[in-house]
């Protein structure tokens, strides 16, 4: 099992060996290809992505400072919001303009930043809901339970397997609303797997999860890759990004500004400028700090001089 893990990870990383660490770099086997997606809110351009490809079978992280448009970009791709322009294909099939439920049926399933457990349904009912093509979801067939009970039993078996894997099997008959925040995240992920997705899109899977559960969640995300799924996730936690992702895409002010493997992406000056410089206490040498100070002073003076002249 462990050897297998290494292989999958190695495979995924090998696929990126030839990929140039540039925004919009073509990948050997992209599952999702995005072109010229634009979303404006009034005068603000929230998303303006020229070209992005997501490699099949990999874990790709989407990072960027607050307000970079990561979640908005997610919403465009999954049909939860309507893009002003742009095209994207999933497995070669065009997805732009499709409503959210049809996107999910294609095999591209998302989770949400604010967990959406269906509180007054039991954990097991939450899971069953995720299954596709249920005969009993038609009003008239619903009236005759013999028409759907067999399929329901199959779905239940599958749901129980997943619940066991996510260690929620003891909670199966509890209301989802009674779970803790971390358990809800687990349930949401497990429920998304009931759909049978090829691409799992996780919007901040670690937000609001206590550190003890973080490791378990990380394990589950890696596990998705082991089972041949592709993962695209939005995250703030740098350590997590470094730990599990095979490739990192950086967004700032709506655009993709950099791409690359997680080890080197942090050193990319564009990333430091846009994101890390503002948030991390980036290691500065004394000389660098002084130089920055001088530059700032020079800029200030340049601005002040005209004012002084005007006054004079």
């Amino acid at each position, binding site marked *: 099992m462990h050897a297998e893990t290494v292989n999958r990870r190695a495979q995924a990383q090998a696929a990126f060996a030839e990929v140039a660490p540039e925004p919009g770099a073509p990948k050997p086997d992209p599952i999702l290809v995005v072109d010229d997606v634009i979303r404006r809110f009034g005068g603000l351009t929230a998303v303006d992505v020229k070209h992005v490809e997501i490699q099949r079978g990999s874990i790709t992280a989407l990072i960027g400072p607050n307000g970079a448009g990561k979640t908005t970009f997610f919403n465009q791709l999954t049909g939860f919001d309507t893009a002003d322009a742009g095209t994207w294909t999933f497995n070669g099939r065009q997805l732009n303009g499709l409503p*959210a*439920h049809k996107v999910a049926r294609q095999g591209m399933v998302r989770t949400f930043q604010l967990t959406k457990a269906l509180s007054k349904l039991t954990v097991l009912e939450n899971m069953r809901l995720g299954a596709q093509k249920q005969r009993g979801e038609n009003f008239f067939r619903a009236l005759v339970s013999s028409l759907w009970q067999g399929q329901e039993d199959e779905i239940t078996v599958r749901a129980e397997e997943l619940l066991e894997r996510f260690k929620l099997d003891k909670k199966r008959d509890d209301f989802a609303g009674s779970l803790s925040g971390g358990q809800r995240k687990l349930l949401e992920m497990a429920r998304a797997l009931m759909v049978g997705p090829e691409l799992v899109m996780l919007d901040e899977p670690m937000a609001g999860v206590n550190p003890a559960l973080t490791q378990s969640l990380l394990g589950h995300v890696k596990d998705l890759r082991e089972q041949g799924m592709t993962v695209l996730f939005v995250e703030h936690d740098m350590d997590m990004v470094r730990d599990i992702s095979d490739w990192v895409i950086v967004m700032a002010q709506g655009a993709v500004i950099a791409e690359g493997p997680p080890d080197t992406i942090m050193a990319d000056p564009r990333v430091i400028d846009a994101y890390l410089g503002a948030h991390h206490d980036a290691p500065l040498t004394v000389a660098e700090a002084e130089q920055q100070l001088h530059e700032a002073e020079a800029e200030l003076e340049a601005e002040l001089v005209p004012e002084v002249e005007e006054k004079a």
Partner: protein
Amino acid sequence: MDWELIFSRALSAGIGTEAVIYALAAIGLNIHFGYTGLLNFGQAGFLAVGAYGLATTITTFGLPFWLGVTVGLVGAVLFALLLGIPTLRLRADYLAIVTIAAAEIVRLVVRSVALRGTFGGTDGLDSFSGDFYALNPYSPGSYGFWLIKFDHRTLWVLTVGWILVAAACAVVYLVMKSPWGRVLKAIREDEDAVRSLGKNVFSYKMQALVFGGVVGSLAGFLFALSRAATQPDLFSTELTFFAYTVLILGGAARVAGPVVGAMIFWLLLILVKTGMEEAVNHQVITFITVNQVGSINYMLVGLGLILLLIYRPQGIFGDKREIALDAR
């Protein structure tokens, strides 16, 4: 004070025509609000469409009874579609505003002077119930047991009414324990989550609106037939609010909730009203007149509801654990 009269009237009201009509109206609302979370404040509109569909077909156009029933049912479906197409994509509170307006539009249209020839204006329509009472298997007379007595016409309405209530409850029970009902309940909790799992939320909400509306139109048929007449002002917003009261009293999202709610609501309403009237007539209560009893009765009902919502918000059949989840 005549206690026998008081209890006789109260018990009769508890299983009488009003209880049946409000039970059906509230079963429809339970599908909308209790299971799917659609805040439909226009249930009176569905009743009006049913009642006027039936009455207009028979009285104005001289067509047969069963065609009238069909027109009423088809009318309810169309009204649901008309209401749903523009509003179901909007947030819940917009649906509430639009439905309350739509029900008022229906009432004002059938009330209008311009369409008096078709709908009868404020006087409404009558003489459409002949065929219905011709089917009555009970011979003329008074029927009942203990304190409860009904005449043969009322008994026929009640027979049909309770059969419809039982049938509606059976259908609701079957579909709500199926995967179809699971989708509805999930939509009530969070639409976007359901969308992300590949379900067409709009379609399910529309199905729920149509289903609940059709059950509401059954209540409209009974309302019109039991009175052998229909007037527009029977279908004011008050009807919808009483139906909500009945639903919350019994417990939303429970199959039997609306039925038991309707029975208790009407039993209590008439018990208190007749009790007060008797007390005033026998000089037990001297500081009010009989004419004031009606208003005070509604005040007491309101007070009772407030207490209910404070001490038992889940209603009679509700699950307290579910209410506790909302507080989190």
